[in-house]
């Protein structure tokens, strides 16, 4: 057996909110993965088969995706869903998983400028905060367990616009 000392963890990066140890894993395996939220103004975000390639799908505004590789320009990033199996190839998070509120979702490439990084998480970070309750609200999403400070921030931003 080959046993090599390959890494010494010294300190977490001050810029990264995730301070998990390198080998530390999530409850059921896997490491925390980078999540981002789609922040288009109104329309869904176009998903392409490769950077600037043919359109293969759409991801709704406000959706949370797992991000993977970037292209050489840094403008395009590959996305998958929280069902994707790994951060590298993001497989398994596309058409096989049908999403009621994102029927055209596919694993693919999107413009990075339309994504807001949310940090690294084991689970979909806002799963408990935004839910699809089709019986109650149709295709609209319901904010559940909203973060208390974000409630204040939201009210304050509305106040400052007046």
């Amino acid at each position, binding site marked *: 057996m080959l046993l090599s000392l390959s890494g010494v963890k010294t300190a977490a990066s001050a810029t990264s909110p995730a301070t998990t140890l390198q080998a530390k894993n999530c409850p*059921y395996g896997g490491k925390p993965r980078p999540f981002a939220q789609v922040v288009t103004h109104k329309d869904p975000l176009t998903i392409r088969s490769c950077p600037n390639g043919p359109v293969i799908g759409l991801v709704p505004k406000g959706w949370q995706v797992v991000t993977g590789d970037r292209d050489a320009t840094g403008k395009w990033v590959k996305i998958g869903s929280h069902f994707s199996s790994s951060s590298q190839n993001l497989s398994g998070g596309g058409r096989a998983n049908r999403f009621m509120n994102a029927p055209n979702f596919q694993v693919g490439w999107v413009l990075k400028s339309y994504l807001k990084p949310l940090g690294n998480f084991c689970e979909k970070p806002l799963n408990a905060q935004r839910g699809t309750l089709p019986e109650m609200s149709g295709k609209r999403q319901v904010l559940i367990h909203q973060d208390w400070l974000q409630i204040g921030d939201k009210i304050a931003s509305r106040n400052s616009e007046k």
Partner: protein
Amino acid sequence: MRELSDRTATNLKKVLEVALTLPGNYHRFLQAGLIDSNSNIKQLVTDWQTAFTNLQPIDKQTVRQNPGLFLATADDLVYRGMTSGTSGDFFTYFAGNEWNQARLLARQRALSWWGIDEQVPIINLASRLQPLRVNDISLIGNITADWLQSLKELLQIQPAVIRGYPSRLSEVAAALVGHSIPAVLGVICTGEVLFDFQKQLLESIFQTSVINEYGCQETGISGLSCPECGRLHLDVDRCFYEIIDGELVTTDLFNYTMPLIRYKCGDRIQLDFDACLCGRSGFTAQILGRIQEQIKTQQGWKYPGEICLPKFPGILNYQIVKQNQVDVDIWLQLEPQQVLDLSPLQLWLENLFGEVRGRVIVDSSDLSQLENTQSCSDLEWIEWVTKKSWREWLELGLLPAGSAREIALLLKSLIQPTVMVNSGISPIAQQAIARLLQPSPCRESPVELMAVRVLLLACSFLADRPTRQNIYHRAQQRLAEMNCGEYSAMVDLLIPSLGFDSNTAISIWENTNLPDSGKLDVFNIQHLLAAFNLAASTAKRENPNIAIAWKPILSILIGDLNFWASRFHIQILASWWELVNGKALASSIHRQTTGDSFLDAWLTWRQAILGDGASATTALSQLQATATLPTEIARVELEQGYAKLLWQEPLNPVEWLEKIHKNAGLISANLPDRDIDPIPWIPLLWKLAPLWLAGGESELAYQCLIAAAPPDMRASGFERLAREMNYKQSTICDRSNIPLP
């Protein structure tokens, strides 16, 4: 099935009688012969115990698809919990008062084996475990030097039991090597499989017994190891346990709200029916792990609990992650000043996995550098908390470098406490308040003003009224000495009145010289939100009629603020005081009209609620007549809903669901097109849920209850930290064996 005791049989029958009425169970019960298919009446057959053995177990995924089909009542909801699970693989479950009482009693009973009574605090460490009993505490967040110091200070104040996930507790223990640690009365390990090396480490560092706890809330499972033999005794009063095809299958005997019958929770355990030498009745168990946690070894597939993880010389703590068929990551925390000899570990890994590539990662974290903070000037920080996002402030870890630093740290400890107590604030935050109460002559005026504003905000976090009053008066005095007349500071001076009695509140209102006009700043808005918690408690005590009719009144206050923030006048604050106290505030200031006709009509309507029904009806009609903007018309419909709740008038569920759809975006603007903010509608959703359930729309009823989760400042602050840093993990796992969902 083994023979049931009379008590278990009685409880099982009672819960089956509730469960058989639910659509999610009907076919399963019918198939097992638990109910008679020829009878029009749904009732258990005479020999239900035999039929029960034929009942097909149900798993989490099935319940998750249509949880509403398992909802028996939408009235007696005392507990709202979320199952554990992989991404997207969880659901919210509900339970009632009887269940909650049984839960607390079982816990109290088991803890008493170890002499842990209600007076002994339990400090939950670095985990997603909230304080449960009155004296309990949770210390959450990243394990830094300050965090460890907080732990020692808490233990210094009062010896306590510590509790958490064994992997996280071991991280804490390893970080405490060489420290002088105040007395610890016991270490409770829960949530993960406890391994031998962890038990040894925890015992040696904390110099106390290690207790193994097992629990799964949605199933009613609970258990604790006994002091005499260390065997894990499961509580058989709350839950009926079976092993079917090697898997644990349970029936919670006290959940009549959302009963889960023969439910597979996904854990693998071994039950041992041999009597324990400690003399306690019932059986014991060994936890093997989650069903998806199997690990491929030289000896075949194993669950974590079937693998012995020994102590290795020179290594305090470790984690093994098999990344794929050939690569294994080993993370280590070493004993100080040890030459690392990897050969025992290497040999052990070879025996376990065969020929693999091991990658060792030694943790040599400098705890002082784990703090996520950035420095800024005092004025930059003040600008941030009065004008910008508080959530972003915390995410950036922005702290002022000057004399405002202690003020910022106090504010942070209030809104995002790493030390969380069951009610009020932690002893550490209390000390910070005491320090800030001492005037400091070297503070510049903007910093001193922020010190006073933060002290006024702190009043909303204090349960003890005399302490709150003392802090308020000292802050008020300091503000008077500053001769400050800023609108935002004056609003801060009035906000704490929401938590005070009539005399104090009237005195506050009469002695505050508010400028004619001004605008709420970000600090005011966050201050108001915090004060609403205290106001909601006041309503329960002073105006129970409104607190019951408009439950949870907190959501109404937040909804009001969201609607009126941009049109704020101080009369609104006075109106909230009157609402929660159920009486008029005898002050002339807030009687003046605002110049905003719709707001004036709204204030009249809210005040009329305190009087007779006729004047309230007139005021509501007047409000409707005044509404011109679409947002105002939507607001009127919401207030009409509140009126129906108050006057106990029937609600048409179809009509009101449509109203919510139509008006939600207008009442809570600035939301993405697809979103609904349910907060102002929560009291109505609570009423709609039982109506939908009675009408056979169980999934809709369930979804109303999900949407009606009340806003919770404490839980929100807790989750913000603990969700990111204090989740469970596996001490040994095989990532090559993670199935796709």
